[in-house]
């Protein structure tokens, strides 16, 4: 039996669809928050292992001491992930949580890039992270992440250009070139977020309409059963 869904949406159905949409988005975003909480811990451990492997000690002749990279990985890494993890645990699904996670994920990228001595390959972490952030289906989160990346490059480009561009006197607009590649990815991720949101909204509306039809069918069935019962009683 097929169910014909009308294009006309009653206020009650629209309200129910909005409620379903909100619930689904919340459940999805809370799941993504938990995923990022785990990912941030994994990255933190990877950063420490990387620092211990690549640069465990700083040397002065025969004498060695724990390398600054190890301290930065341990203390700096913990400082970066503590807030997003607590928010993911205690405030899952909220706007603040996912924006803090986006900023922290980008800061984790910056930390990993630093710990690997600015290796160009580590910059791929930024692009992978943006794709993960798109799981939220909230394009504004991508803007936060992009602003953090651009600000990192802009500030380091002004005060510390060699660390990010490899040359001492880059053009003032060089951070825009780097951020431009991020924006290039953002365009498609934002489009996928908008499409994903529409699909969830559409699915929620269909479910609300089916619920409405189901209720109407149940009412009809109940009315028929009552009518039948009355006929049997009078027969």
């Amino acid at each position, binding site marked *: 039996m097929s169910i014909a869904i009308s294009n006309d949406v009653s206020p009650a159905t629209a309200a129910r669809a909005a409620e379903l949409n909100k619930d689904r988005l919340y459940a999805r975003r809370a799941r993504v928050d938990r995923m990022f909480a785990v990912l941030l811990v994994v990255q933190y451990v990877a950063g420490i292992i990387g620092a211990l492997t690549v640069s465990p000690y700083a*040397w002065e002749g025969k004498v060695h001491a724990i390398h600054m990279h190890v301290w930065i990985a341990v203390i700096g890494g913990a400082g970066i992930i*503590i807030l997003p993890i607590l928010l993911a645990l*205690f405030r899952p699904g909220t706007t603040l949580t996912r924006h803090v996670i986006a900023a922290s994920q980008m*800061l984790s990228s910056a930390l990993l890039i630093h710990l690997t001595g600015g290796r160009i390959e580590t910059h791929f972490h930024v692009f992978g992270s943006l794709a993960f952030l798109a799981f939220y289906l909230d394009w504004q989160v991508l803007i936060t992440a992009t602003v953090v990346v651009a600000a990192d490059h802009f500030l380091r480009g002004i005060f510390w250009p060699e660390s990010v561009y490899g040359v001492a006197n880059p053009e003032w607009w060089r951070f825009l070139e780097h951020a431009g590649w991020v924006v290039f990815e953002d365009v498609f991720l934002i489009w996928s977020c908008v499409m994903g949101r529409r699909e969830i909204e559409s699915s929620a509306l269909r479910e609300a309409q089916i619920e409405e039809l189901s209720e109407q069918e149940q009412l009809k069935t109940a009315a028929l059963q009552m009518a039948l019962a009355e006929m049997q009683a009078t027969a």
Partner: protein
Amino acid sequence: MSARHGISALLILAGLIWAGTVGAMYRAVRRFETTPGRAAAAHDQWPDASRISRPAGAWTLVTLIHPHCSCSRATIEELQAIMEKAPPSLHSFVLVYRPSDFPAGWEKTDVVEAAYHLPRSHVVIDVDAREARLFGGFTSGQTFLYDGNGHLRFSGGVTALRGHAGFNRAVASVVRIAKSGSGRASHPVFGCAIISQQEGASR
């Protein structure tokens, strides 16, 4: 205090730690990467007492390396770039530090292994930094470029920052001087100390 208020206070504290860490980390990293090591007291002429025989009439690059300094990897990468871009007449010596009271083989690291594969280069184990002292260098990554007559043409590191590989002014200077046969340049050196401040002061 209710659990809700307790969690809010915890999150505010975490927020403060988060913001503080980001600021402090940027500052610490910046200071670490941009603080150069001790500059060389380089001599204008190839040291006569050196046991390294300079190829007669050829331009020669001499680089000091601490085998366990992580920043040395970036130096070796930049040396590779220099040797590829410079004229084929340029030769290179990589002096690898090893204290005499440390076991032989202590200096065998991935950095030194990479140095063995540099084109037109020789790796020399520099016991107790004897050669480094003769050349006047104190810091891992310190590089000297000498012309065919043994005159010093470049002194400094060949990385832009501590442990950062990538094309930079120092590499450009060395390649330009080696190609043109004229000019002099210097650059800060970033790396671990081969000769400590105390040892250097007592020279």
